[in-house]
């Protein structure tokens, strides 16, 4: 079950990255043969699906390691929901792409440079406080994003968004409660989640970036008002952080790159675990 995209990953990019200048133009991933976006909607769905797949995998790392049994179960439930959402989104991405790749093929047989998730979701899970602050920042984004897409002009995407929104809402409630509990908790819990927030804030700007893919899908009816969404997200985030007695320290430069396949080193390590069984036994069923 060798796949064409299986071979153009790490070696190619390592070989090319030194010989070409960093190309920051949208969609040109340094070190990868010039990606031409022929299907913006499929690309857009990869972004939506990869966010949830990668975060779902990060959360699943807590399975059996949660601080208390209830949270072990809660985090595994989150992971299940997110991976379920990713399955729907990547399934649709594969259909639209029309190359015969299903959700599994996209999840397990792409290399890091082909993933389109935001950097925020690939960062290592850290301690439980870090996991919950990251989850909260993402959940607030996910809720406003899905709420907007639930009424977009693409029927299949709108249906998936409406379904996923129900889950994102209770994820947000749960992660918000933990951010308040830990932030407004003991000196130690406050210190830890404040440090987590300081480390994570620079990864939030990427969630609201827009580029030619957004413009192209808007023409197909998938309209996402970034400014309105960001205002809603900020209202949620600042409300909860105030209750949690946490403070946002402004950062000079927001991290970016995930939507164009430029990831942190952490994604490759994550994929090496997540994809290992599927790649060792391609096509296996049980």
């Amino acid at each position: 079950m060798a796949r064409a995209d299986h071979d153009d990953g790490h070696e190619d990019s390592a070989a090319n990255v030194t010989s070409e200048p960093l190309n920051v133009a949208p969609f040109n991933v340094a070190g990868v043969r010039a990606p031409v976006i022929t299907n913006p909607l499929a690309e857009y769905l990869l972004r939506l699906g990869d966010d949830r797949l990668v975060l779902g995998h990060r959360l699943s790392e807590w399975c059996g390691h949660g601080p208390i049994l209830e949270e072990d179960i809660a985090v595994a439930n989150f992971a299940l929901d997110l991976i379920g959402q990713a399955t729907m989104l990547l399934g649709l991405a594969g259909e639209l792409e029309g190359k015969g790749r299903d959700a599994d093929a996209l999840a397990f047989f792409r290399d890091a440079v082909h993933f389109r998730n935001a950097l925020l979701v690939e960062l290592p899970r850290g301690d439980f406080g870090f996991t919950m602050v990251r989850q909260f920042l993402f959940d607030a984004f996910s809720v406003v994003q899905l709420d907007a897409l639930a009424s977009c002009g693409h029927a299949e995407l709108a249906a998936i968004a409406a379904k996923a929104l129900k889950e994102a809402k209770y994820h947000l409630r749960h992660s918000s409660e933990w951010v308040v509990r830990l932030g407004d908790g003991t000196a130690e819990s406050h210190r830890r989640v404040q440090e987590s927030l300081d480390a994570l804030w620079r990864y939030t700007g990427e969630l609201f970036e827009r580029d030619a893919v957004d413009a192209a899908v808007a023409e197909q009816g998938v309209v996402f008002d970034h400014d309105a969404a960001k205002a809603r997200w900020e209202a949620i985030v600042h409300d909860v952080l105030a209750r949690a007695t946490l403070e946002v320290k402004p950062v000079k430069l927001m991290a970016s790159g995930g939507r164009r396949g430029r990831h942190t080193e952490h994604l490759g390590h994550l994929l090496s675990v997540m994809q290992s069984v599927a790649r060792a036994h391609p096509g296996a069923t049980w």
Partner: protein
Amino acid sequence: MSVLPGTLTSRDDVFAVLDTVKDPEVPVISVVELGIVRDASVTDGHVHVVITPTYSGCPAMREIEDDVRAALLAAGAREVTVQLVFAPAWTTDWIGPDAREKLRAYGIAPPGRAESGGLITLTRRRAPVACPWCGSTDTRLQSEFGSTACKAIHTCNACRQPFDEFKAI
């Protein structure tokens, strides 16, 4: 089976058969009562069933699909296709009064009304969930997440029993 083999001819026949297929994780209510069977049609022995998933990542969906297929083949269908749709999104409001009573009798508090509209419900005060064992509303939420994606865990302060709640969604 309420339908004899070979007599599957209508949508109602299909629903009658599927009303015997239980949810594998809540084996007291059927997939019809759960509200996930959205439509069915029969053309010349070929049965087409439309189902919608409960939760996006519900691991029981595959098993439910297999059970649906097996039950219809056993009831005389020549061929079965199962189509998965996502809209309208499943809601626990589709679970009828009889099924709610079956849940309660089984020890699972039935779901309340699903929330709609408002985007954010932070730090909400929830209506107390009545204990399915003793009926007391003096209960506390133990964990928002339980043995399956669709359940939360509560404890009754009156009879001291833990119990599952079918979450409203």
